């Protein structure tokens, strides 16, 4: 399938229309994502590699197309994630703040309703998220972590596939205008 620039880039005011969500969706969906991350790996350990909080952050940032909204959602989700981790508060917070901001900025320019774009963005944001976290761990905490590119790409692809499915489900929770 050929997907031309005209379909990828947004030009008109109609194209850049933001999506709206009900308040409970904005609260419960990130909470469910965090709950999934802390509870499900107890039974299925391989699912620990699924970054649902990241996927949810990217989704809301892309759909709302508001950089400030995106970074705030990222900061809150990230800090909640930090609270439940053994890391100092702020590691996931800073990472997801940047991700939320960049995702919202990308959402202003790209047609993020197309599954292929969503797949690529899912992969890109996962790798970007891992990279920022790795940089912060080394620079701010002095931890000697390795950045495993191949592993990150594979996990990124798996997360992207899940993201496309989840985005499709979350689209149904959009407020109709």
């Amino acid at each position, binding site marked *: 399938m050929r997907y031309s620039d005209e379909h990828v880039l947004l030009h008109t005011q109609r194209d850049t229309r933001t999506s709206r969500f009900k308040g409970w969706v904005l609260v419960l969906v990130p*909470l469910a994502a*965090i*709950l999934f*991350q*802390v*509870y499900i*790996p*107890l039974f299925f350990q391989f699912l*620990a*590699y699924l*970054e649902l*909080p990241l996927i949810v952050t990217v989704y809301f940032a892309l759909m709302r197309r508001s*950089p*400030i909204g995106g*970074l*705030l959602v990222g*900061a809150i989700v990230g*800090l*909640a*994630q*930090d*609270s*439940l*981790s*053994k*890391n*100092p*508060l*702020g*590691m*996931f*917070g*800073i990472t997801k*703040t*940047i991700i939320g*901001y960049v995702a919202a900025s990308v959402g202003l320019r790209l047609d993020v309703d197309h599954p292929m774009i969503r797949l690529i963005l899912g992969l890109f944001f996962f790798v970007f998220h891992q990279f920022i976290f790795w940089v912060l761990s080394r620079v*701010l*905490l002095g931890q000697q972590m390795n950045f495993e590119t191949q592993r990150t790409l594979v996990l990124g692809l798996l997360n992207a596939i899940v993201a496309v499915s989840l985005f499709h489900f979350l689209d149904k929770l959009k407020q109709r205008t």
Partner: protein
Amino acid sequence: MDTLLNRYRNITVLLLVIFAQLILLAYQVKNDKDVRLIRLAAVTAVTPLARAIETVRGGTDGFLQNYVLLRDARSENGHLRSELGKLKLENQFLRTELGTADRAKALGAFEARSPSKMIAARVIATATGASASAVFVDRGSTSGVEKGMAVVTPDGIVGKVLAAYPTASQVLLATDPGFAAGVVSQKNHVHGILKGQGHGNCHVDYVQNEEKVETGEWFYTSGDDRIFPKGMQVGQVTAARAGNPFQEITVDPIGLANGVEEVLIVLAGIHQEIPDFKTAAQPMYLAPAVPGTAKEAQAVSTSGPNGTPALTTDADKITARYREVGEEQGHKFGENPPGSRPADFNLEPKMGEKDGAVVKPRAAGETPVSGAANGGRQGGPSTMKPPAPASPSPASTKPAPGVSPSHPKAASPAQANPPQ
């Protein structure tokens, strides 16, 4: 100015939020303190939900199992009346409940057996982050849990409490790279530090290459870390090899071997002894004696009075001499009342008369010379001087047949010719 702020509003907010979080991060790292309020809010929001989900899951699991069993019971016992079926269902349900309580019972038994004060807890969530080796348990500060407490199972250690919140606690597992505990090996009592590696196995560090650690050996907690009480099982050595500068010892943590579901938090630890290492008593093959030498060897080995084994050490010979002298004078060792006249140990035993020696009281300053009595050494019994080198008599230096020359004393006249 307003226009400028409006123009760069997004990036300004981004920088402000990142800067605020950097300050938060710097505060925690520099002061080694946690911002408890934020964590408390998140844990309080999430862990009750996790606990509720876990309860629902357990109930659903039990219901499904019972339902399946009920279907089986119906198919097998269709002719039974409905009331009987209900009773069976109830019975089955109770059995399932009993089965699920088995682990808790085992924990309870261990809790009662162990001298340490413990509290049982259930794992309700894992920590966020793919590489994190930490879990949440459903006991918190309201149950008396505090940061730094040890977490164990009847099999072995699990980890330690990283943070205690009112309704839950975060436990750092022994496999986490940030975990460390003092350990000691069972067999050779080699001390080291157990460290997590981020995956299934742990590493015992700071063990010198000269110290002996064998594969298959068990490590126990040493109590040095003031977290784990001494004497708790840690794991078995899976690999031990020399390294630079310390040995590279890999330990398989037994407490985490079968996954962690129920654990015990040690509220007040009591040190225990490390169990002794027991080697299996294996039968040892002894080849038959050389023909012709067996009798001679027996003659020497039973050359003592009444066929008792020959005396081998100087102490044995001195003791035998005192006993002999005491018996001749009617002295009973250990029975004479205080103040009674002690035996005169300066007298030579009468056995010497048989050998032609003259028994007489020893003059002051005279030292006994009888090689049979004291092994040819000088020094009276009261002086207990260190033995001076003396030239042994030819009789004592000549080894008896079948006796090694390295033990010439065994061939002394008194032993070679036992009293008839």
